[in-house]
C-alpha cells in the first residue's frame, strides 16, 4: 500500500469515531428510547411492555441500526491501536488490551442491540415475562461486563501516561480515561437495585457513566486521533516518539 493510500485509510477509520457517536446517539439513544432506559428491575413484565416496547415501536428500528453502527466503535479502536506503538514501532500488551476491549465493546453494542430489537419485534407475539427476561438478561450482559471497556481504557490510559516519548495524547487524557474506567465499577450493583443512582437508569450508572465515557473519553481521544491522522508522516513519527528512519 503506498503512503497516500495508507493515510487515506487511516483518516477514514479515524472518522468512524465521530460517525459512531452521532449514529449511536440517534439509533440507540433517541429511536431506542434509552435516554434513559426503562428501569426494568422496578417494573413488572406487563409494565415494561406497556411503557416501553409496546409504546415505542421505533425501538426495533433503532436497535437494528445500533447493531450496525455499534461496530464502528471497533473500527475506530483498531485505528487507535495502530497508533499506540512502542519506540521501536511494535504493538505492545497495552495496545492489544485497548484493541481487545474495543472489539468486545463494539460486539456488545451489536449483540445487545440485536436482542433488544428482537424483544421489540416480538412484543405482541410473546409473553411479557419472556420479553422482560430477554430484556433484563441483555442489560445484565451490556452493563455487568463493563470490565471489557474498563480494560480498554486502562490499556489506553496507561500507554498514554507511561509512554513518555509520545505527544499524540496528553497525559491528562490518560488519567481521565483510567478514572472513567474505574467509575464503571458500581455497575455491579445495577442488577440488585430498583431505584437510586445505581439503577440501570440511575444518575451514576447511566447518566454519569455514559456521558463521561462518550464525551470525556471517546470525544477527547477522537479529537487527538483526528489531529494525528492529518499530520505529515514525519510529524506523526516524531509525536509518536518513534525513532526516525535511518
Amino acid at each position, binding site marked *: 500500500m503506498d503512503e497516500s493510500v495508507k493515510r487515506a485509510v487511516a483518516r477514514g477509520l479515524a472518522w468512524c469515531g465521530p460517525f459512531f457517536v452521532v449514529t449511536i446517539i440517534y439509533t440507540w439513544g433517541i429511536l431506542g428510547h434509552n435516554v434513559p432506559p426503562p428501569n426494568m428491575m422496578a417494573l413488572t413484565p406487563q409494565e415494561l411492555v406497556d411503557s416501553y416496547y409496546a409504546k415505542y415501536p421505533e425501538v426495533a428500528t433503532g436497535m437494528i441500526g445500533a447493531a450496525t453502527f455499534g461496530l464502528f466503535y471497533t473500527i475506530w479502536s483498531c485505528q487507535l491501536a495502530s497508533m499506540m506503538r512502542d519506540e521501536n514501532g511494535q504493538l505492545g500488551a497495552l495496545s492489544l488490551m485497548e484493541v481487545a476491549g474495543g472489539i468486545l465493546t463494539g460486539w456488545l453494542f451489536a449483540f445487545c442491540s440485536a436482542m433488544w430489537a428482537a424483544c421489540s419485534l416480538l412484543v405482541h407475539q410473546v409473553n411479557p415475562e419472556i420479553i422482560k427476561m430477554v430484556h433484563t438478561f441483555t442489560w445484565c450482559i451490556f452493563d455487568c461486563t463493563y470490565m471489557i471497556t474498563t480494560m480498554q481504557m486502562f490499556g489506553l490510559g496507561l500507554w498514554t501516561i507511561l509512554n513518555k516519548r509520545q505527544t499524540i495524547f496528553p497525559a*491528562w487524557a490518560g488519567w481521565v480515561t483510567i478514572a472513567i474506567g474505574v467509575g464503571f465499577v458500581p455497575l455491579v450493583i445495577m442488577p440488585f*437495585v430498583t431505584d*437510586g*443512582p445505581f439503577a440501570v437508569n440511575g*444518575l451514576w450508572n447511566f447518566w454519569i457513566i455514559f456521558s463521561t465515557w462518550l464525551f470525556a473519553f471517546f470525544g477527547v481521544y477522537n479529537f487527538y486521533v483526528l489531529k494525528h491522522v492529518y499530520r505529515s508522516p514525519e510529524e506523526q513519527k516524531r509525536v509518536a516518539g518513534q525513532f526516525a528512519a535511518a
Partner: protein
Amino acid sequence: MDQRDALKAGLERQPGTNGIWTFVFIDMIVFSLMFLVFLSEKIRLPKIYAAGQAHLDFRIGLTNTLLLITSSLFMADAVASTRRRSVVAVRRNLLACLACGGAFCVNKLFEYHAKLSAGLSPAHNSFYSFYFFITGAHFLHVIGAMIFFIHCMRQNELQMVQPGYRRKLENVGLFWHFVDLLWIFIFPLLYLTRGA
C-alpha cells in the same frame, strides 16, 4: 525563553511530578461527582439516609480520622527526611505510615464485616450503596498507597539518596495526603451529620 525557564524552575520547586498533581486533581473530580450524587440521594430520601447514618459508629470514623492524620504527619516527615538524605528516618516514617494504614484497613474491614453480617449490604438501600461505594473507593486508595509505601521502603540505601527517589516519595506523599483529605470530608459527611 523566560516563560519556559520559569516553568522549568516551577516544576523543579514543585513537590512531586506534574503527573501526580494531574492524577490527584482528576481523582478529586471523580469524588466530587460521588459526593454530588450522594447528596442528591440524601435530599431525595432523607429518612433512609438518617436511619442508615444512625447505624454508623462515629468512634470508628473518629479512630480512622486520627489514624490518617497521624500517618500524614509521618509521611510529611518521611519527605522531609528524604530531602536531608536520612535513610533511617525515611524507613522509620514509612513504616509508621504503613502501620497507620494497616490499622485503618483492619478497622474498616471490621466495620464492613459488622454491616454485612447484619444483612446491610450495598444492595440493601440507597444509603448503603453509597456507604460501601464511597468508603470502598477510599479504601482502595489506602491499599494502593500502602503498596507504594512498601515499594519505597524496599529501595536500597544507594537508591534512596538519588534525586529520583525524592521525587517518587513526594509523589507517594501527595497521594497519601489526598487520601487523608478525602477522609476529612467523608468522616463528617457519613459519621458526624447523623442527626441531620
